[in-house]
């Protein structure tokens, strides 16, 4: 992969596919699955150390994390601990997709709240509904984690949310 993403500050979905194979549609429908967006060789290992089933391979600390999607049980511990906030979970549920993402901003939305979806470059691309919140004190990585239900076509776009009341 060329390093053009470093002048932009975000990855395109094609670039993500170059760094890591995406889970199959069948796997995505089964249960949540962790997908890292971690393109550089950086000295960082918490995701592979915390994974309870050894699904994240990383032969040396500077290697990129590679997830074995068949082993992954969708527990979200990697999303909670990742210091780079670069792990997400995706789960296809009928017409919708559920995206699990870190959210270290105030306010932390509540279950059932409608939120604005943001893509990797911060553009508003639609709305979603919060279906699960792991608050900071329940997160192993001190990072609140949200699961947001989004239209399935935004499953590989929506990577952050803006809580509606926080808008000026």
């Amino acid at each position: 992969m060329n390093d053009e993403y470093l002048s932009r500050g975000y990855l395109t979905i094609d670039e993500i596919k170059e760094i890591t194979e995406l889970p199959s549609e069948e796997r995505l429908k089964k249960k949540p699955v962790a997908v890292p967006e971690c393109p550089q060789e950086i000295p960082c290992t918490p995701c592979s150390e915390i994974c309870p089933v050894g699904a994240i391979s990383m032969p040396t600390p500077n290697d990129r994390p590679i997830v074995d999607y068949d082993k992954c049980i969708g527990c979200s511990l990697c999303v909670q601990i990742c210091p780079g906030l670069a792990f997400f979970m995706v789960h296809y549920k009928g017409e919708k997709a559920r995206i699990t993402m870190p959210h270290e901003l105030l306010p932390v939305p509540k279950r059932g709240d409608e939120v604005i979806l943001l893509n990797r470059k911060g553009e508003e691309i639609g709305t979603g509904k919060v279906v699960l919140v792991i608050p900071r004190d329940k997160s192993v990585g001190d990072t609140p984690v949200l699961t947001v239900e989004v239209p399935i076509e935004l499953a590989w776009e929506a990577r952050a949310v803006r809580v509606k009341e926080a808008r000026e």
Partner: protein
Amino acid sequence: MRLEEHPVIDFTRKRGKKVTIYFEGKPIEAYEGEPIAEALHAAGVRVLNFTPKGRPRGLFCAIGKCSSCLMKVNGIPNVRTCITLVEDGMKVERQHGLEPLPRDYKPPKWKDAEKIEADIIIIGGGPAGLMAGVKAAEHGAKVALLDENPILGGQLVKQTHKFFGKREQFAGVRGVKIAEIIAEEAKKKGVDIHLETSAIGIFPNGEGKLVTAVKKNKKLMEFYGKAVIVATGAMEKMIPFENNDLPGVYGAGAIQTLMNTYGIQPGKRVLIVGAGNVGVILAYQLLQAGVEVVAVVEAMPKVGAYFVHAAKIRRLGIPIYTRHTILKAEGKEKVERAVIAQLDDNWKPIPGTEKSYDVDIIALAVGLRPSIELLHQAGAQAIYVRELSGYVVRHDDRLETTIRGIFVAGDSSGIEEATTAMLEGKLAGIAAALFVGKANVKNAMEEMEKVRKDLDEFRSGPFGQRTRIGEEKVMIK
């Protein structure tokens, strides 16, 4: 303005008792445990002094290194207000150029200096110094540690993001938390800690060393030991542009100190210069504190930070303009606007690409340089190493400098990061304990070997390349 709510820090629990200080005669509310300049900032005061030519100056580094915050406190000029704590009833005035001491002032005398003895004296209580203290004590040495800041932890106390590395090296833990853990550990191991104490010189003293120091700007102290570990960290670099001395042009670290350590809103709208780790992490932290970031500009064609930190701010809508730089700051007595422009391939601003932003803060995140002043004064051999971001001292594989018994660790040995600073601290701590004859040789050698392996492993990737080249240049073989 003060921050009451924060997604990952709890300030109201940390604030001390309310006190009143007087700024130019006007009462200002402050909290015990916070420094003068920070309290003034919370009250909206940006101009702290005027240069001899009458130019206004404000905070810049907020860690006692740059002298941009000198004020008159209770009549005494040249007080570094960014690290001097408020006291109830304190009188603070803007300083105009060079002001003399009051006529009736009696300076302290060296014969009255308090004397502290230990095997090892550590200068600096950041990640490197604290770890050095923990390890040296663990290996049987008596350790005294001094730091000129009012709190232990160095720059970790403002790092609200989680660290990389391995979990045994605190990966996945926020810097603020790491500071608490290792400070607690150092205290538990019996390290004799002296805060608000500035080291001012290192001298030979027979077979040992003498470190002279000043506590709370007035009390003289002498620290006697057999070895000294210098872990004095780094200071922020400055870049030239018009009005770069205007109050409101802050080092990135100063903004972190204000908002993350003391819970003070640094400003309303911020432009950040530099898209290295410090710049993009700062942008994210500002968002967390509810402050608007208009853009991050970076002269290089690529983001220098770890990509994942940049991605965090991009998906929340903060633009990063690579190949852009700041042209000037504008404003009367404080920053009101910033003008940026695109750069051509010869690093020259392209006419017609100027953009102006109404901001009250310009954050400079343009790199750090090692603080080697004390090592230099002590006579350690220093060389300029670009990869380590400035002048650094030569050292061997135990981090001992060209002066026997003086060790170096952390950013003062070359700019890197807190994880490696902790590892270097461990190494220097064990090596110094061995040097003073306290450590068990076999245990010490084995543990040093493990730490060296950890360091090599951390630095083995593409991001460690600069350090590897730099280390090659400073290493005494």
